[in-house]
């Protein structure tokens, strides 16, 4: 964070594009704070990605294979044959500019190459040169240019400055989706070993240990046991999540970020509490250490890698013999499940059409994939009055909700989280309508960009979202940003700290955990973060004193 300019400095963004020099003639400078680190050779080797080597984007020599040009052009031809989307998006853009000021990176940074249209032109210019007659004959006059190492570097720099959030595709009159361009652009780059560390390391980890942080099975269980202790301390209730249990009815898969890092860990505690609460009502659910990652970093590498990592979900469901799968709060995980999973690794004919064991509701919208979003599951529980909730336990919070890009624009999960939030807290305020639902702004760190070394890029990309949060913070006193995505929970704390330090970040199931009235629980004085509940500040202080005295006594003994 220390290298990032101060917010007042960063906020001075100039959106004017250069007047005389065209973009093809202005060189790209690869900047620290924007560029991510290169993927490490051992991680590439582990999953068999091409050209593993030590290299740095700040070096002149990127150590490309000798026939890199041939590899890229063959790769492009192959992808044009495989993806109608790519072919059409290469051909039909009219450069109307409607997408230009819709991209969070352009809004927060002003770099014209971050206009979605220009990001796509980076690829289109090569497509024209190689595959169109006009491009071959007329060159720059037809918007074509030769593929050079500099072009490749430019691709790498800018395809790793797009979070595949799809906001531009909502505005495009032809539905041109920059996410599709970026996904395929990254596939091409990976063919010659150009990638970033914060994607290739999680990919290797997910492949090996099942989750992106490389947590081994025993450590994964340890983490959850640790949460169980915390929950017992806060609620007085002991819970027993089960792992890798054969014959369970439901398999639960959530992004591993929730197991490892605050504030996602509190969301994870919320899951454990919800499952415990429902256990007596007939919920039979197991966690898995093998399929312990909902998120799919493969999706930020290539379609093939996405398929390879996603395969674990069905494989584990089959091995354990469950009936269906429940998925945790996550962003791109749900785009993959909704739009790719069945095609990648289906048919899941060894599973059954999901039915809530508590309410009997059939999740007909998931009858193909057999995988239900936990927000859908919980919303259904609340609708059927199956949860005893005390929303006042969230009275310290004035909440606004951030629609994560992928569940919004790659699925349409808009009302369910709002319904849940309104039932578990008393103070909910929407951000301005141009910044929520299908028009939501990215957190600035999706699609593998939530690294540490690109902090300036993240703070810039998150500016539009932060600005909307600031608006409701100033207007309604909002102090908590709720979300249903693990990357959000990893990215937003830094972003809020930078732009609006008064606002915290919370997962929706953490709020459920706070509000849920458990059987046999003691009077709660704190929330899951061990912070005093509204009106409990004094009680909590007294308890703290008591505890300290006890410790003192013990010491004396």
């Amino acid at each position: 964070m220390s290298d990032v300019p101060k917010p007042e400095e960063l906020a001075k963004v100039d959106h004017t594009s250069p007047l005389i020099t065209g973009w093809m003639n202005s060189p790209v400078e690869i900047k620290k704070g924007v560029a991510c680190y290169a993927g490490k050779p051992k991680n590439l080797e582990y999953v068999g990605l091409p050209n593993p080597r030590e290299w740095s984007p700040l070096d002149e020599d990127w150590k490309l294979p000798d026939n890199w040009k041939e590899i890229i052009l063959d790769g492009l031809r192959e992808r044009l044959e495989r993806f109608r989307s790519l072919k059409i998006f290469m051909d039909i853009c009219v450069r109307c500019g409607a997408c230009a000021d819709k991209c969070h990176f352009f809004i927060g940074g002003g770099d014209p190459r971050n206009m979605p249209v220009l990001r796509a032109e980076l690829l289109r210019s090569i497509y024209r040169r190689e595959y169109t007659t006009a491009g071959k004959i007329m060159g720059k006059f037809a918007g074509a240019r030769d593929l050079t190492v500099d072009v490749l570097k430019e691709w790498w720099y800018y395809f790793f400055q797009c979070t595949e959030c799809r906001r531009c595709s909502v505005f495009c009159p032809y539905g041109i989706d920059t996410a599709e361009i970026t996904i395929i652009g990254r596939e091409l780059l990976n063919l010659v070993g150009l990638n970033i560390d914060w994607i290739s390391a999680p990919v290797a980890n997910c492949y090996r240990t099942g989750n992106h942080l490389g947590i081994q099975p025993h450590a994964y269980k340890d983490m959850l046991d640790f949460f169980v202790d915390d929950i017992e301390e806060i609620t007085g209730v002991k819970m027993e999540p089960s792992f890798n249990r054969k014959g369970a009815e439901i398999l639960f898969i959530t992004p591993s970020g929730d197991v490892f890092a605050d504030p996602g860990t509190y969301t994870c505690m919320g899951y454990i509490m919800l499952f415990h609460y429902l256990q007596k009502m007939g919920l039979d659910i197991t966690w898995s250490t093998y399929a312990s990652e909902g998120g799919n970093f493969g999706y930020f590498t290539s379609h093939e890698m996405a398929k390879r990592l996603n395969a674990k979900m069905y494989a584990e469901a089959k091995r354990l013999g469950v009936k269906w799968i429940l998925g945790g709060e996550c962003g791109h995980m749900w785009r993959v499940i909704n739009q790719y999973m069945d095609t990648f690794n289906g048919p899941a004919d060894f599973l059954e059409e999901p039915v809530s064991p508590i309410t009997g509701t059939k999740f007909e919208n998931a009858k193909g994939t057999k995988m239900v979003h936990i927000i859908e599951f919980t919303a259904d529980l609340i609708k059927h009055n199956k949860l005893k909730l005390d929303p006042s336990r969230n009275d310290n919070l004035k909440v606004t909700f951030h629609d994560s890009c992928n569940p919004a624009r790659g699925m349409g999960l808009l009302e369910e989280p709002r319904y849940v939030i309104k039932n578990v807290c008393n103070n909910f305020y929407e951000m301005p309508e141009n910044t929520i639902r299908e028009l939501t702004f990215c957190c600035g760190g999706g699609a593998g960009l939530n690294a540490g070394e690109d902090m300036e890029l993240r703070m810039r990309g998150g500016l539009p979202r932060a600005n909307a949060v600031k608006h409701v913070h100033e207007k309604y006193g909002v102090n908590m940003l709720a979300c249903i995505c693990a990357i959000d929970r990893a990215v937003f704390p830094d972003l809020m700290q930078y732009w609006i330090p008064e606002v915290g970040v919370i997962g929706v199931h953490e709020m459920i955990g706070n509000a849920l009235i458990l059987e046999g629980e003691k009077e709660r004085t704190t929330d899951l973060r061990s912070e005093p509940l509204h009106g409990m500040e004094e009680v909590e202080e007294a308890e703290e004193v008591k505890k300290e005295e006890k410790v003192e006594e013990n010491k004396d003994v």
Partner: protein
Amino acid sequence: MNFIIGILFSLVVVGIFVLIPWVGVWAFDLRYLFGIIVPYAAVATFIVGIIIRVLGWARSPSPFRIPTTAGQQKSLPWIKQNKIDNPSGTIGVIIRMALEILLFRSLFRNMSLEFRGGAKLAYEWEKWLWIAALAFHYSFLVVLLRHLRFFTEPIPAFVRWIEKLDGLFEIGIAPFAGFAAPGILISGFILIAALTYLFLRRLYISQTRYISLPADYFPLFLIIGIAATGILMRHMGVFMQFIFKVDWFSVQVVNVKELAMGLVTFNPKIPEGIGTIFFIHLFLVSTLIAYFPFSKLVHMAGIFLSPTRNLANNSRTVRHINPWDYPVHVHSYDEYEDEFREKMVEAGLPVEKMPESQTEDGSGTQEEAEKE
């Protein structure tokens, strides 16, 4: 390449396309070439080009269902689905596509960003692009349909209605008694106004200026040229003749119709009394038609095939097949357990196969022993 070169280049090219028929007809009397061969060649190029283009697109599959969902999904029965912006079935997709194609629904969402110092963002009303786009496309369509009067005998009723509607705004400009000026048809003027706006907008906004290619200016200038020559013929011919006693823009409508009918009935002939201006108009139109399949103008066909718009968001309900799907390497559970078995057992996690040290007799199974 910057905007100055882009604009100049496009202007010069359009200028050349005006000069070619002008010189050709006026100096060399190549009426047969410009009146018959060029239009036929252009239409043939258009048909073949579009077919090749669309088949080319269609040859590549849509392996994954990737609609942009711009509204609430179909989920629990008590949650209202947005059936148009997030369609789960064919009817929803058809309505979504119809709104997209007929009303430019996505463009209607446009708003402009207002960036104020200190990171204050505001989103301003910006429907001008949408309005201009609609005005351009629909006035162009009306002009096109009006021209059917040249290619049909008898003229269909709907063409007459369109013409009537188009002339509703007629402002009698007969300056002299007994002077019969043809009625003003508003569509041509809207067409030029919209094109002018689109050009100025492209030039004025720094971002669009930066991304614009000659391929963006050229069609604008070309269509402006077509509309201008059309308007000159229709509205200025008699006027010029009357005032300046020149017949530059005079065209005998009856003769033009004879030529057009000849073309569509494959019985082409060049009648007398058609001025050079008509051949310029016709040549520019031919250029546009022939240019169409090879340019960004194919968005007209491409929009129908756009996978983010023409697919239903039903991939959790219905299985879709990727035609080029291939098997991939995965890290199986067995490989995983083999690596972590001891640690798993130690942590009390269930395993498929007990490690050797943990089996009943403490020395592993016979098979395992043999392997070693």
